[in-house]
């Protein structure tokens, strides 16, 4: 079972990896976007860390809802509402339980990814964060590590894709050959989850 502390650690790990990778995310957002994805997420997850630190919520659901709300209120851009919705919806699915099972989290994340698809109108293959999220959530039934690896593969698989959603779609054929920044950050998020789970399970 995973308690609120586990989810706080996930968000803290996510903030750390976003901080480490912010420049690369912005770099990826340059040829096919507007060069702000890294600084957007950095701003957002820095705020998430602060919000969770200020008044640590007591349940897994509350942690993710607060994180999602904070992203919505601080990121802006496309990724703010999308990642905010992902976490908020996932958190809402987890309800008010003090601890949740891995299976409950899998289902909740599945719903969260569905909410992202609905909000943004994208589908896998459109070269967005969904390519990493959908692949990652599908592999969650195997393990958190398998999910992270699948998300990473999903992100890499966006390279040859022609973008159909988000800014990259403006480029038409010229969007081909570049990895999607949002798919890349989505893989980082699921990677942070796997790291936190590894540490918890090793203890």
């Amino acid at each position, binding site marked *: 079972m995973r308690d609120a502390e586990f989810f706080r650690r996930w968000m803290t790990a996510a903030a750390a990896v976003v901080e480490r990778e912010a420049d690369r995310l912005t770099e990826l957002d340059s040829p096919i976007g507007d060069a*702000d994805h890294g*600084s957007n997420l950095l701003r957002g997850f820095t705020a998430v860390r602060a919000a969770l630190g200020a008044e640590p919520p007591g349940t897994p659901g509350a942690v993710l809802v607060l994180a999602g709300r904070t992203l919505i209120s601080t990121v*802006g851009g496309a990724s703010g509402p999308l990642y905010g919705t992902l976490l908020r919806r996932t958190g809402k699915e987890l309800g008010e339980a003090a601890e949740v099972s891995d299976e409950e989290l899998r289902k909740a994340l599945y719903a969260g990814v569905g909410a992202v698809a609905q909000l943004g109108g994208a589908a896998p293959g459109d070269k967005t964060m969904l390519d990493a999220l959908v692949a990652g959530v599908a592999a969650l039934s195997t393990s958190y590590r398998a999910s992270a690896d699948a998300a990473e593969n999903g992100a890499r698989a966006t390279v040859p894709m022609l973008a159909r959603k*988000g800014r990259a779609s403006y*480029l*038409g054929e010229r969007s081909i050959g570049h990895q999607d920044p949002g798919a890349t950050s989505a893989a980082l998020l699921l990677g942070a989850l796997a790291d936190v789970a590894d540490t918890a399970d090793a203890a």
Partner: protein
Amino acid sequence: MRMLINSPETVVADALRGMAAAHPDLDVDVERRVVVRRDARAGGRVGLVSGGGSGHEPLHAGFVGHGMLSAACPGEVFTSPVPDQVLRAAAAVDSGQGVLFVVKNYTGDVLNFEMAAELAEEDGLPVESVLVNDDVAVTDSLYTAGRRGTGATLFVEKIAGAAAEEGAPLDRVAELARRVNAASRSFGVALSACTTPAKGSPTFDLPDGELELGVGIHGEPGRERRAMMPAREIAEVAVGAVLAELGEVAPADGPVLALVNGMGATPLLELYGFHAEVARVLAERGVPVARTLVGNYVTSLDMAGCSVTLCRADEELLRLWDAPVRTAALRWGC
């Protein structure tokens, strides 16, 4: 990095402090990033709120004032504002007549304004939204995020603002805004990339002697890279692309409003020279020009380049275009 800034993190807040210092008739909330005209609620008018990423100045905050926007919410550079900002702006300008959101069609802007609209409705504040999508370089289809909102935003904000100033009700202001957008098309060209403060280096590599056709206003590359062309040929491509789509969709064959817009780093000397060619192409194609605006209005930081926006205008739109406006960046009649 050749920037006149304190730090990449503070550019937007610093610019807002500067606006507050320069424009006493604006109520600038630097902390919460909302720029409101001081008398926004005085007239019992429909509120007109727009916003988007920063880096396109004078759009939008430079268009807040009498006869145009009631408030603007600037996001981080090239990043849509967050819903909280938009909601705050709506609340600040609402005088019971409702509020119109003017939203440029970018996924981020659309999602954040949508969320703000939902929150506003929850608060009992009637909101309508108008999407601006005028950029013909992007095909409006299932396979893209749809045409981008660019130069037409100025036309929409000016004309809807004039209607609101006259006391038109929300549905009427919204209808006019949609009409202006439907009658407008744009095309943009980049002669250089731009440099965002956060990244500190150009958003794309453009070798000397080449240009990008069909760019937006966020430093993204265009649809096509070509060898450098003289202004006269660029005007032919841009005006040709705009007229091709304007012909299809515009309601009338009336005269046009023309915006010959600089991307930020193109000298006015060049922009006027470019306009000479735009005017020539329009004359050759028999398109009468009713009003012209030449200058840096919808920019992309320090990008060199230009865009052309045309709007087919009937008598009513022309009258509202000519109506008095008093903002930091657009001013006439008062």
